């Protein structure tokens, strides 16, 4: 290798001019910060090593303690010591019940978001997360000798728009300039791909199996010459190490745990975690809590973990299918997250993918290392790394009748955009209610509601003549912006989607799983809704037209029309969408001569003085 010849002191000057940027892995259980020095990412250590437990203690005297010292307060003051807050970020009242049972502190909510009630005050998950981020920022500033100018924060790949927005808000609240939100498995792949010592440095197709404290992601990436393309991603949020801890505690203690005090649950789960970690090194350990003393073997752990691992396996198979790959197409499987230290998990992954998983880089540090690289890319403009990530969950709009029309499908590369034109439903409709949704199911009530807004000022027209063009734009952070434009007037309305409430990881995951399980039910339900709405519209329009223009109606056509309407009304009461569709078609045929006359007159009236060709084009004839 040639020596780099440089003026003395030049690298120091370069170092001084360089922006001070870092990458942060904001985890459910632990968080850490890393930066790039001399082209190599490294974690920043503080007291007690690089990991900062994601725990915040609000003292009764008003003080705030973060990390290991806070963790020490957990048993004495469970209500004031907040752990696993990542499970709450970006969530709403709807999600309260499903998360409350898991956490040893008190939750409350308004219609906007979930909050935590300590003995002295109410704090939001965004505020608590900001305290953890502040601690990491202070650490980095002490180590790097100056203010931090920018940060990349990682989020689980399956985090939805609300959870991403809330994480970004926490960064802002901590006084950080958030350069980018980065998916955790993507960050891990970045660290692997750039580390010359790993097999992944030579490129290929890799699965990243990321099992953290409260989150599970599986992403498949292709690595070629500095490009990192995410092929598909998915997750199962009931699969964090936290869930395994609870499964162990429940298996050992059984009924004693139901309805127990917060402090007891906290202590049982802490002991379960200790046993789980001990089983990484030894084949058996003893669960000890009060009078209870119970030996636990690695085989016990494997059996208790099985239901969680099965769900994980299902998510993995789905992601492979989305990527149109078989497990043999993979060059390797990379392990990420503290929970992948467990031999039970390692064995499961090895069997699932048929290959020994890779853990060359520390699974608890690799996400932060990748985030640091991405921060460096954004700050310096270095061009040896390009990340192409995807939208984790489909984005769409609610249609009349409650069905969802997807505009951007899951696993579409970002930045992404889609534009679609929609028509008015009713005569003289003057506005459009726009309801933005995220999820895989077919009906609005089963997807996550992201935002609602109304486009007004549509000129009164016959139903179906008014047209609105709606555009979805997803930026490189995976955040959505929606624009609506009325096409005859050019009137425009847009919204940065700011979700008003959140969705649980469990809900995101359940939505995905359900969409597969109920795909067929959904389709029938959707068809029925669509046909009924269409039938309603046609009946109303036909009746109104019969009243408006009796002179165009012959006795024969009127009789045929009335009969067809009766048939349609009967069909609508049933559940058979095909019967409704056929009745609509029959009504259409019966009233065709009448509709023709009306259309001719409408064209003549609307385009008086316009050449006939133009008129025909405008009505789409």
């Amino acid at each position: 290798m040639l020596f780099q010849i440089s003026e003395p002191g030049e690298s120091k000057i370069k170092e001084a001019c360089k922006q001070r940027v870092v990458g942060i892995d904001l985890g459910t259980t632990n968080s850490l910060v890393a930066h790039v020095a001399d082209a190599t990412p490294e974690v920043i250590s503080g007291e007690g090593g690089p990991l900062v437990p994601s725990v915040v203690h609000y003292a009764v005297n008003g003080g705030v303690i973060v990390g290991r010292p806070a963790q020490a307060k957990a048993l004495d003051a469970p209500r004031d010591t907040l752990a696993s807050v990542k499970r709450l970020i970006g969530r709403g009242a709807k999600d309260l019940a499903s998360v409350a049972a898991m956490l040893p502190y008190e939750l409350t909510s308004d219609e906007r978001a979930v909050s935590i009630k300590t003995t002295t005050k109410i704090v939001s998950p965004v505020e608590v997360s900001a305290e953890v981020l502040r601690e990491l920022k202070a650490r980095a500033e002490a180590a790097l000798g100056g203010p931090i100018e920018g940060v990349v924060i990682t989020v689980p790949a399956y985090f939805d728009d609300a959870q991403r927005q809330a994480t970004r808000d926490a960064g802002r609240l901590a006084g950080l300039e958030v350069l980018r939100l980065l998916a955790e498995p993507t960050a891990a792949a970045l660290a692997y791909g750039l580390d010359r010592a790993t097999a992944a440095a030579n490129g290929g197709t890799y699965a990243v199996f990321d099992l953290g404290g409260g989150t599970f992601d599986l992403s498949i990436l292709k690595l070629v010459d500095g490009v990192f393309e995410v092929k598909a991603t998915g997750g199962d949020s009931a699969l964090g190490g936290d869930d395994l801890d609870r499964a162990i505690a429940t298996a050992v203690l059984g009924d004693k745990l139901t309805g127990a005090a917060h402090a007891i649950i906290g202590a049982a789960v802490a002991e379960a975690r200790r046993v789980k970690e001990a089983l990484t090194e030894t084949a058996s350990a003893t669960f000890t809590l009060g009078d209870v003393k119970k030996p636990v073997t690695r085989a016990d752990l494997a059996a208790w973990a099985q239901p969680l691992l099965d769900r994980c396996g299902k998510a993995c198979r789905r992601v492979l299918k989305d990527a149109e790959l078989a497990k043999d197409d993979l060059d390797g499987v990379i392990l990420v997250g503290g929970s992948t230290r467990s031999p039970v998990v390692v064995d499961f992954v090895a069997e699932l993918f048929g290959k020994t998983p890779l853990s060359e880089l520390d699974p608890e540090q690799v996400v932060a290392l990748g985030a640091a690289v991405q921060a460096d890319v954004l700050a310096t403009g270095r061009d040896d790394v390009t990340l192409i990530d995807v939208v984790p969950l489909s984005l769409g709009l609610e249609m009349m009748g409650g069905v969802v029309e997807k505009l951007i499908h899951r696993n579409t590369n970002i930045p992404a955009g889609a534009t679609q034109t929609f028509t008015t439903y009713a005569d003289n409709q003057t506005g459009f209610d726009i309801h933005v949704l995220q999820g895989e199911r077919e009906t609005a009530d089963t997807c996550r509601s992201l935002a609602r807004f109304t486009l007004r000022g549509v000129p009164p027209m016959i139903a179906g003549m008014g047209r609105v063009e709606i555009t979805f734009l997803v930026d490189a952070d995976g955040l959505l912006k929606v624009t609506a434009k009325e096409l005859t007037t050019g009137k425009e309305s847009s919204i940065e989607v700011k979700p008003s409430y959140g969705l649980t990881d469990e809900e995101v995951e359940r939505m995905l799983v359900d969409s597969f399980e109920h795909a067929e039910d959904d389709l029938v339900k959707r068809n029925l809704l669509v046909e009924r709405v269409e039938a309603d519209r046609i009946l109303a329009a036909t009746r109104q037209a019969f009243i408006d223009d009796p002179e165009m109606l012959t006795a024969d056509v009127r009789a045929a029309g009335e009969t067809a309407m009766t048939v349609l009304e009967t069909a609508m009461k049933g559940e058979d969408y095909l019967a409704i569709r056929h009745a609509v078609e029959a009504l259409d045929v019966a009233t065709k001569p009448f509709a023709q006359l009306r259309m001719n007159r409408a064209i003549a009236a609307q385009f008086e003085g316009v050449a006939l060709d133009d008129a025909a084009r405008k009505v789409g004839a």
Partner: protein
Amino acid sequence: MASPSTSRIASPADPGRAASPDSDAEVRSSAARPAQADLFALLGVAPRYDLDLKELEAAFFAKSKELHPDRFASAPAAERVAALTKSRALNDAYQTLKKPVPRAEYMLAAKGMLITDNERLDPAFLMEILDLREELAEARAAGNMKVVEANQGSMQTRRKTTLSELPALFAANDLSAIKDRLIALRYLDRYLEECDAALDSDD
């Protein structure tokens, strides 16, 4: 029904869509794209149906390196916006061209032949599909996943066979034959989705 001053969006503007659940997303996404945008030119590959997928991916990666928003993170706002727009168009082009059915539909549309939702089907083909669906529904109801898997397998073979006819038809520029195959493929794909749904719910 009361006449509301504002109302939810009625339906996508493609005529007849609501009445035809058998059609799927492709036609809409291609309809949303300005017809004049040349996706092949955008990626810098030769405009042919039987393109080399490795070459397409290499071209996409090379263009992504140039155009990705990360390259412009500290550029002036106008440049950042321009890069975002270009990067989005590039992603969209790649997404369309990398899969055979969207690629064929795009190429057909570029030649002025659109697939609408009211296409006439060969009655024999329609009857056959309806019978197959009925068979599938019965197997699913009876929990007979062996039959579902067998039907899925034979449908996948049939899909492959239909797809394999496309290169020659494109070479011969036989647009109406291509259109027939693409319409049939929609029905085959819908059927395969139903197989997936049946197998997934059985897991």
